């Protein structure tokens, strides 16, 4: 077993365990912290896949900014102990388990039988440097990039509008 495989298996186990604990923990803050661990391990996997830029974005944006936002909202609302897995009905648990089994078996069948393009993967493909990524982003994908800017602006305006309407209602009422 090569060293890389050992590291991959350890990281995969950490990622899966943290995902399961995120699903099962009754305290929403704990869930969020498990998810931070999950995102960080996936960031390390990106480093193994020699994608340093994506790895850093994963750590700063996902494990950093987005999860801080989640934690902030959980603590703001005091929603730590709402709706654990144990509170859902038994039929729902069975149905969800059945659907998850179906989903994972479909993934397995497609991977074994289907035309997935897995066999065309080459292990010694040229490495992708952040330079290459930036060049492709600002040459071929410059229009989608600008659209992303508009999307973020729209989201920002939407959030501001969602949270100022309440103030006006308070003034009126």
């Amino acid at each position, binding site marked *: 077993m090569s060293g890389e495989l050992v590291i991959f298996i350890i990281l995969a186990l950490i990622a899966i365990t943290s995902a399961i604990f995120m699903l099962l923990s009754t305290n929403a803050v704990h869930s*969020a912290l498990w998810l931070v661990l999950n995102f960080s391990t996936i960031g390390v996997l990106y480093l193994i*896949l020699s994608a340093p830029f994506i790895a850093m974005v994963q750590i700063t944006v996902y494990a950093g900014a987005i999860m801080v936002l989640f934690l902030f909202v959980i603590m703001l609302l005091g929603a730590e102990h709402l709706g654990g897995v144990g509170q859902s009905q038994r039929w729902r648990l069975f149905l969800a388990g059945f659907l998850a089994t179906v989903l994972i078996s479909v993934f397995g069948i497609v991977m074994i039988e289907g035309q997935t393009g897995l066999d065309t993967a080459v292990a010694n493909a040229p490495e992708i440097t952040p330079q290459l990524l930036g060049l492709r982003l600002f040459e071929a994908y410059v229009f989608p990039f600008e659209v992303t800017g508009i999307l973020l602006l729209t989201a920002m305006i939407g959030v501001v509008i969602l949270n100022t309407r309440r103030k006006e209602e308070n003034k009126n009422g």
Partner: protein
Amino acid sequence: MVSIEMYVALSAILFTIGALGVLLRRNAIIVFMSIEMMLNSANLLFVAFSRYHGDVDGQVLVFFVITVAAAEVAVGLALIVTIFRSKKSINIDEINLMKG
């Protein structure tokens, strides 16, 4: 190098756990976190395939997915805060009406 099937399997497992989270949890914030995990498993697959094919486009797509996810989280959490203010609850079984 680890074979790509391992990455596909890990991604499938994480996606399934995320889907289970959406189906099982009643807390809207946890449902949101599960959706983030599903997006993340797709991202992992994109980066793995881009590495094994030597193709930059996969990583560019991951960049866009992360941006859209950030926008989605901002709007979604603002919605959750607004719903919590009017309904005093974020249990998704209790907020099944379009009416305010």
